[in-house]
């Protein structure tokens, strides 16, 4: 049977493994990076996610998917979790899980929304809110001499930028074109009027449909719908636009 080559044999990826929290790093007021030590982790590709399962004393379990935020590094798996209001799992991970505590994870999951080292061509990353997480894994995985990368990252305000310092370094010294799009509050130096993502945020020399970047769009459903439509309108081929949506939307 045809099957995409992703790390780990099938049984390895299906197995629930004990994952111990070794470090927590606050990213914003509502997002935290969790570094887990997962015994026997089979490895993952940038862009993939994992299933995280919490188990209560009476055996009740709750499982959610979270994107991995950093490339493969032995048994270490980094997730960045955005607290969802009233979220059963995200609030526990963000507030309740302490260093030394364990959860269960399995994966990696998802062989489509991935970037592979050596994959040819420029890469256009479009993030809405915590949709930046799997895109950060892609940015962190690209090596020296990689094709051009551009990140267009939509946030409500300056305080909501996850990975702010690292993105500033990537932009200043590492040749990654990072464009922040502020939808509600912008820093004074930003001349762009606040508002939702628009065509002019995505249109840039070297990043047209003819330049044929592979586009990765991740964020809440409404954001992804809008961004993907803008990319298609700008001439990007639909089969080069990969999307990952999360969160609820109205019917």
């Amino acid at each position: 049977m045809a099957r995409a080559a992703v790390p780990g044999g099938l049984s390895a990826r299906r197995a629930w493994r004990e994952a111990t929290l070794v470090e927590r790093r606050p990213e914003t007021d509502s997002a935290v990076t969790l570094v887990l030590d997962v015994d026997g982790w089979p490895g993952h590709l940038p862009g993939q996610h994992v299933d995280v399962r919490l188990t209560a004393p009476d055996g009740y379990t709750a499982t959610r998917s979270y994107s991995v935020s950093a490339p493969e590094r032995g048994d270490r798996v980094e997730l960045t979790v955005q607290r969802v209001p009233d979220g059963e799992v995200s609030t526990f991970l963000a507030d309740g899980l302490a260093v030394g505590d364990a959860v269960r994870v399995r994966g990696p999951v998802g062989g489509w929304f991935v970037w592979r080292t050596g994959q040819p061509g420029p890469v256009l990353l479009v993030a809405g809110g915590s949709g930046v997480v799997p895109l950060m894994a892609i940015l962190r995985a690209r090596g020296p001499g990689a094709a051009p990368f551009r990140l267009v990252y939509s946030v409500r305000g300056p305080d909501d930028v996850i990975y702010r310092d690292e993105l500033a370094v990537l932009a200043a010294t590492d040749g990654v074109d990072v464009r922040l799009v502020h939808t509600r509050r912008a820093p004074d130096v930003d001349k762009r009027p606040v508002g939702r993502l628009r065509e002019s945020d995505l249109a840039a020399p070297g990043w047209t449909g003819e330049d044929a970047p592979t586009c990765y769009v991740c964020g809440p459903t409404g954001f992804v719908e809008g961004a993907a439509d803008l990319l298609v309108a700008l001439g990007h081929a639909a089969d080069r636009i990969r999307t990952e949506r999360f969160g609820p939307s109205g019917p």
Partner: protein
Amino acid sequence: MDFVTRGFQGRPRGRDDRLPPGQYLTGDFPVLSAGPTSNVDHDEFELWVATEDGTRHTWSWAELMALPAETVTVDIHCVTSWSKLDTEWRGVSLDTLLADVETAADFAMVHSYGGYTTNLPLEDLLDGQAWVAYGYDGDDLRPEHGGPARLLVPHLYFWKSAKWVRGIELMLEDSPGFWEQLGYHDYGDPWREQRYQGD
């Protein structure tokens, strides 16, 4: 109990027995697709069924609308763990579409505008289990949810209910579709929690 997450209690229980294992209820209607939303005009829409010997049956939008329609209320279950109960759809039963189709096939590959595919056993499309749906909640089915028409196979995980459906290829042998090639289960029964290959 072999494993407990220290400090985790979870939401109050009282589980709904209509909720398959590992699923949680949502009142919203989340969207999951691999790429941009396809926009298909009624003018260019054509639904086809192709048998293993190459015979094709086709319906224009007007022809599809002229077929007897049913309104069904069903529960839907997404592999990403949300379930939505009592969703109301309007569409044409596959029993109607396949009534005059002669085939010895046991499997079907469903094709979408945009290139998405998903495979199912043919018997899961018959006997009142599957529809080509074009209405949702009393309205037209919106593009982000698969409009103008999508497959509706509510007893399987919802990726089997292909959005933007354009054709059904009947096959003598099974063959994996888009997500199935990427590690998702070939059958996808939510009650047996068949999320990934090997589950």
